């Protein structure tokens, strides 16, 4: 008996095509589940920070603890090692990246949503393009046009090697970087989502086939374990994306380092 024959996986379109809730499909403003998760990425941080700003007193409590914890985490663990001196103006962007991505990821394990918005390419691409535009503008603003010379013709390299190094630097820094930045997040979240779907489908199929119910002993704990794992992945991917953005900005701010 072919065990896999009993398992019916949903088509890939179920992860890719999301019908519009508002406005018409295939328009620029078709508002679907992914857009709603991005909307939560705006309103949840807003609610937390606005409630946090209402607190007073020397010892932070409630939402203020949460918002200060997030800010301190992003500042100490991301902005400080990534940018270092002069990081303050970029803190709002980095906090926004972190929260927007984390909320877009964590919906993967929240009932009703069970879909990470960042398993779609649109969100990561927008964020990566923002980071790309930001680090180039920071480089030009702080170093003038010499920033491009600094990046494309790194000091200390023998002149003959510029024939090789300069095109590679151009490709890696200015063309490939936003896509690698976006794809890293997107691919990790899509892979995690497919993994959870696989275990979920396996559990349902094995449960339906009563003869195979003992296999649940392996599959259900696997589903629980991977769900917990994906919570960690959601946090780590938000952290990785944000720290990479910080490193890119730091590299543009202090190109000599």
């Amino acid at each position, binding site marked *: 008996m072919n065990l896999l024959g009993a398992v019916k996986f949903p*088509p*890939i*379109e179920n*992860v*890719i*095509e999301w019908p*519009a809730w508002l406005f018409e499909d*295939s*328009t*620029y*403003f*078709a*508002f*679907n589940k*992914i*857009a709603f998760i*991005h*909307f939560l*990425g*705006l309103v949840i*941080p*807003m609610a937390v*920070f*606005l409630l*946090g*700003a209402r*607190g*007073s007193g*020397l010892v*932070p409590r409630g939402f*203020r603890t949460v*918002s*200060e914890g997030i*800010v*301190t985490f992003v500042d100490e663990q991301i902005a400080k090692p990534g940018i270092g001196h002069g990081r303050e103006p970029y*803190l*709002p*962007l980095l*906090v*926004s990246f972190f*929260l*927007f991505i984390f909320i877009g990821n964590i919906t993967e394990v929240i009932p009703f949503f069970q879909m990470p*918005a960042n398993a*779609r*390419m*649109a*969100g990561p*691409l*927008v*964020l990566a393009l*923002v980071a790309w535009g930001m680090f180039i503008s920071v480089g030009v603003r702080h170093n003038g046009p010499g920033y491009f010379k600094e990046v494309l013709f790194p000091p200390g390299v023998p002149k003959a090697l510029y024939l090789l190094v300069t095109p590679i630097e151009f490709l890696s820094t200015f063309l490939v970087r936003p896509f690698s930045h976006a*794809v890293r997040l*997107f691919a990790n979240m*899509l892979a995690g989502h497919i993994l959870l779907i696989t275990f979920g489908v396996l559990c349902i199929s094995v449960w339906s086939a009563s003869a195979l119910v003992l296999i649940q002993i392996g599959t259900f704990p696997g589903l629980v374990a991977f769900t917990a794992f994906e919570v960690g992945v959601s946090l780590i991917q938000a952290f990785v994306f944000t720290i990479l953005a910080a490193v890119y900005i730091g590299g543009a701010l202090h190109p000599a380092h």
Partner: protein
Amino acid sequence: MINLLAIVVAAEEEAGDPPNPVIPVENEIVWAAIFFFALWAMMKFVLLPPILRAMEERSSTIQSGKDAADAATAALGSARRDHEATLAEARAEANAILAGARAAADERRAALQAEADTEIAEMRRSAQAEIDEARAEALSGMRGDVSSLAVGAAQIVLGRDLDAGNQQSVIDQALSAD
């Protein structure tokens, strides 16, 4: 760029293949961009400043409290040093007063002792004089009696009268030899 992506997606759909998950969808790009830029702007101008201000205020409050505690500790140390110096000074002064008092007491005691000794010596001298006078008086009285007795006894023994005046010098000589 969005138009270009739309063309790619349309081409994919026309080919009849399942949609490519790597190709971003334009409406999701639009909403992601709107919500992210809104969050960034809110974070920069509305959400983060009060939190950062509160954190800054708290850290400056803690720092000023720490500075005040350091200053109080320094003041305490200084006050303790002053207190110890004052205590040592008072102790030295008390010792000096005690030594002065002891010296005065010793002086006074010596003076009183000397006065008493003088008085005692005087009393002893006058008592001795009185004793000597009484003794001399008693002795002279006794000498007369002894002379008469001795002369009387000698007259009885000798059976004749003796000149008391002549015998007196002999008797005196004999008494003086004792």
